[in-house]
């Protein structure tokens, strides 16, 4: 069946998942939104490559990646909406919250190019995209693996499904890290530049927040406990790719604490424009 057909059949199972079951411990809304915003923001970014990929086969691969992430976002927003009640839906959460309400890692909202201001113009850089995907996927295989055992039925189900997907994303992005790092001089240079640019943003994975601690008391997932495994995955891949890891330090971003880069504003303005122009419309 086509990708479009399987997206719609996913819809059916989504409605089953969305009702919060009685007896489920309550998760901090901000935690669910953090997970959902991560998936939506990165899904939105990766979809930007549609029609512009370096070869048709990779266009399809990145679209698959984006679809998986948006699918995860939908499930997570629906779970959050069910908890919030009051007429909240996946779409009110995605399209009618502003920049200071978003809880995604800053890493994920960055455009596909080396460091530039929000109004600079630049070409898209495939190395930036794939290195970012690698760094995030390496984290999420660990996160989803833990969360699939959480005593919260909906979250555990979402985690199990997402784990399958992110294992594939990790393999895809890791393979590209190797191809670029140990490819040509140009690809090596671009990959190294992307690593130097993006690695400091991953420091945000390990700073604590109140909602993550609250969630941990329900799910049993302490993010700090993942750091050494994540380092192992990343260091092994960088070594194989003949890339160097920059030292930690420098600015530590705060996207998950609602203070973002200048880039999220532009992304949301574009993404949210149509529903906001027609606030009472159904699509």
């Amino acid at each position, binding site marked *: *069946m*086509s*990708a479009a057909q*399987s997206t719609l059949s996913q819809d059916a199972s989504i409605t089953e998942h969305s009702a919060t079951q009685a007896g489920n411990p309550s998760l901090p809304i901000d935690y669910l939104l953090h997970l959902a915003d991560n998936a939506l923001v990165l899904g939105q970014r990766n979809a930007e490559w549609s029609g512009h990929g370096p*070869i048709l*086969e990779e266009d*399809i*691969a990145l679209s*698959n990646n984006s679809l998986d992430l948006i699918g995860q976002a939908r499930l997570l927003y629906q779970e959050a909406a069910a908890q919030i009640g009051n007429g909240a839906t996946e779409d009110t959460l995605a399209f009618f919250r502003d920049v200071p309400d978003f809880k995604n890692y800053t890493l994920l909202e960055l455009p596909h190019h080396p460091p530039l201001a929000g109004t600079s113009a630049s070409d898209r850089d495939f190395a930036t995209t794939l290195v970012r995907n690698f760094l995030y996927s390496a984290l999420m295989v660990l996160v989803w693996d833990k969360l699939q055992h959480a005593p919260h039925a909906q979250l555990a189900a979402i985690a199990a499904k997402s784990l399958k997907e992110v294992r*594939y994303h990790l*393999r*895809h992005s890791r*393979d590209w890290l190797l*191809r670029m790092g140990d490819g040509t001089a140009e690809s090596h240079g671009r990959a190294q530049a992307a690593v130097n640019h993006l690695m400091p943003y991953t420091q945000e994975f390990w700073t604590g927040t109140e909602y993550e601690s609250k969630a941990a008391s329900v799910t049993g997932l302490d993010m700090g406990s993942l750091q050494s495994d994540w380092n192992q995955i990343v260091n092994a891949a960088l070594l194989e790719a003949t890339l160097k890891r920059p030292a930690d330090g420098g600015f530590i971003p705060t996207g998950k604490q609602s203070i973002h880069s200048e880039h999220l504003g532009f992304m949301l303005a574009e993404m949210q424009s149509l529903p906001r122009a027609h606030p009472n419309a159904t699509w």
Partner: protein
Amino acid sequence: MSADQKSSTASAALKEWPLWEVFVRSKQGLEHKHCGSLHASDSQHALQMARDVYTRRQEGVSIWVVQSSSIAASEPNDKSEFFEPSSDKVYRHPTFYEIPSEVGHM
């Protein structure tokens, strides 16, 4: 094809990712079926692409990929005596009767 044309085609071909034929056995299937081809830089890459393109990420399917240049194929059943001595390539390359434009109208 002249020697010059052949070598420029060859070097152009080296720049292109090799072509791989894809065979998929569906979850309930009995054997692998040929579904088409794609370009990939190596076999792992080809398998990943095939999963994305030809199976739409269905689970429980088995995928084989083979470089097109590695496939040996039989003659078509009929009129084999008319057929040229076979290359062992799967796809016969076209022999257009090309003339350089300097030759003028023919």
